[in-house]
């Protein structure tokens, strides 16, 4: 099913190359690359999975797949520039190549969520790994009960995928709530941390399923609010981030207690990791 499967099996550490077909600036520090694989290889993935992207001579980093799981001719990644590799990646132009290995990791529970109220909670770049879920929900809207998107960004300028969020919030069957830490003059929406949106969000805690992605501290407080509303840990899913060098469970870097975030995660059902989640420096 997966494009690099044969490749990954035989040489799990060796990337294939892909060509940047389109490059799109999302915000001042984020950009989306549309990558076409060499030899027109197809690519399929499950929402929540990630690839290892390699910039020639610089390094390789884990980046979630942010495209539509229904499309297979192109791989999309939205990256925030934070350091050496993501900085070099930002400098790549349309037509340039990068190395790609994947897809790796676990997926968001889009099937398990069927028939339920679905609450998608994202902070900052955390919306990128959840966008494939949103595409899937919109494409199969009839399979789900209420759909709510809660999104928090630093400032209105940092809001990712503005057009799409706008399109989705225009739908009658989807509720989108956004909040920013710092407002600008033109912002008429919510100001404050994302957790303030949870108590008011329209979902039934008894049957809702929540998918949360963002900085660990943000997920920590979101989970606490979800618990307060009565959503149990077995219906909360989070995506964890740890240093990753191999993505195949061999280098050890991504360990989180018994788990390897690269192969057992990045998406975990919260009760799988709950006992460690509040342990500092674990």
């Amino acid at each position: 099913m997966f494009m690099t499967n044969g490749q990954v099996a035989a040489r799990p550490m060796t990337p294939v190359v892909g060509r940047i077909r389109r490059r799109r600036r999302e915000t001042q520090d984020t950009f989306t690359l549309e990558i076409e694989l060499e030899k027109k290889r197809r690519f399929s993935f499950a929402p929540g999975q990630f690839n290892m992207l390699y910039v020639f001579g610089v390094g390789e980093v884990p980046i979630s797949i942010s495209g539509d799981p229904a499309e297979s001719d192109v791989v999309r990644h939205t990256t925030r520039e934070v350091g050496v590799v993501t900085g070099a990646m930002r400098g790549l132009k349309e037509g340039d190549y990068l190395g790609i290995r994947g897809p790796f990791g676990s997926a968001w529970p889009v099937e398990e969520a069927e028939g339920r109220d679905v609450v998608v909670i994202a902070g900052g770049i955390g919306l990128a790994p959840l966008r494939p879920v949103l595409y899937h929900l919109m494409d199969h809207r009839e399979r789900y009960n209420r759909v709510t998107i809660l999104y928090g960004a630093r400032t209105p300028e940092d809001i990712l995928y503005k057009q799409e969020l706008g399109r989705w919030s225009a739908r009658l069957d989807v509720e989108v709530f956004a909040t920013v830490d710092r407002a600008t003059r033109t912002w008429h929406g919510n100001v404050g941390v994302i957790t303030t949106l949870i108590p008011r969000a329209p979902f039934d805690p008894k049957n809702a399923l929540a998918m949360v992605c963002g900085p660990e501290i943000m997920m920590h407080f979101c989970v606490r609010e979800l618990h307060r509303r009565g959503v149990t840990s077995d219906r909360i899913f989070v995506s964890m981030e740890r240093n990753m060098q191999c993505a195949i469970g061999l280098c050890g870097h991504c360990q989180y207690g018994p788990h390897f975030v690269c192969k057992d995660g990045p998406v975990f059902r919260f009760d799988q990791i709950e006992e460690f989640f509040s342990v500092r420096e674990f």
Partner: protein
Amino acid sequence: MEASAQQEEKPVAVEGGLRTGMINATEMQRLIDVLRKEGYQVLGPLLRDGAIVYDEVEAAGDLPAGWMDEQEGGVYHLKRRDDDALFGFAVGPHSWKRYLFPPMRRLWQAERKGKGKFRVIPEEETPQRRAFLGVRACELAAIAIQDRIFMQGPYVDPVYAARRQNTVIVAVNCGHAAATCFCASMDTGPQVRQGFDLALTEIVDAERHVFLVETGTETGAALLAKLEARPATNDDLAEARRIVERTAESMQRSLDTTDVHDLLLGNLDHPRWDEVADRCLACTNCTMVCPTCFCSTVEDLTDLSGKTAERVQLWDSCFSMQYSYIHGGSVRMSGMARYRQWLTHKLASWIDQFGTSGCVGCGRCITWCPVGIDLTEEVRAIRATAPPAPALEDESEY
């Protein structure tokens, strides 16, 4: 030859071969010659820079005849024995992992092809046939553990697998335990039980210097058939077993593994972690000498012209700060968190991950720790002062 996990515990009897045999110590040369003639590079113990290390052995004379090691926390030195035993020592700073999972290797290369374009050149490795001579019981256990990690998960490390398949193992039962050894309490030794092609027990006294040879595979049986051996008697076997039993009895250290998984993971905020962190230098020695530690990192290199790039893999350690670095800072900043990661992984979460402890009781991490930190002591201290019922559930505050 096969991965130890697939091997039967009982030696395989082979037609025309011997299940057991007795050889004179002088036959060691023939064993080395036979292996070399069959295309194996023979790796075994030899003296270098004041330690017994593993490297290529061309002749039996390279083996550290008549030497033994004395070890304690932070202490290792060699001493003459009063006999000429070839394997009369315990384990040194090297482990066999360096030959199956090398400290550094190239993963692939890449070459620029015009502006912005490049191609990836996979690394081809033709594995060298190798014979490991003098593998201890704890080391066999360590190899079996790394087999699980590198060959039995969803992804296989092809280089490890290829090297492993091309390795012949000549194990040796221990006639001497260092003061740092605790394999008996980890149930990994000192008696060799599985995962070998040949297993030797050295019998050296006033009358004789011989080896009991036992075969674990057909490869081993074929090797034994090429040696000048006489059948082993029941007395020979009994004497060999007695030697190993004496070694087990002489062992000074032990680690109580009862419920150690819950003990450690249920005491993540135990004050002992801070106490040991005050002594630990985070030098990474313990992880480098440990025969089961498998962490690695990668480095990207380019040539001056920027035309070619390569990616190499290097051993890494959870004691380094970069190990857990993610944008914004390392997850495990404090030495406390790093030591805790090491020990909880080794003795607890390893069991969740691979169905086995990550410690085989070889004692290397104790000997090679510059400040002599001893994991058996750390576990004992936590056990002694842990609250009576460590309950994992209590950790979450929700």
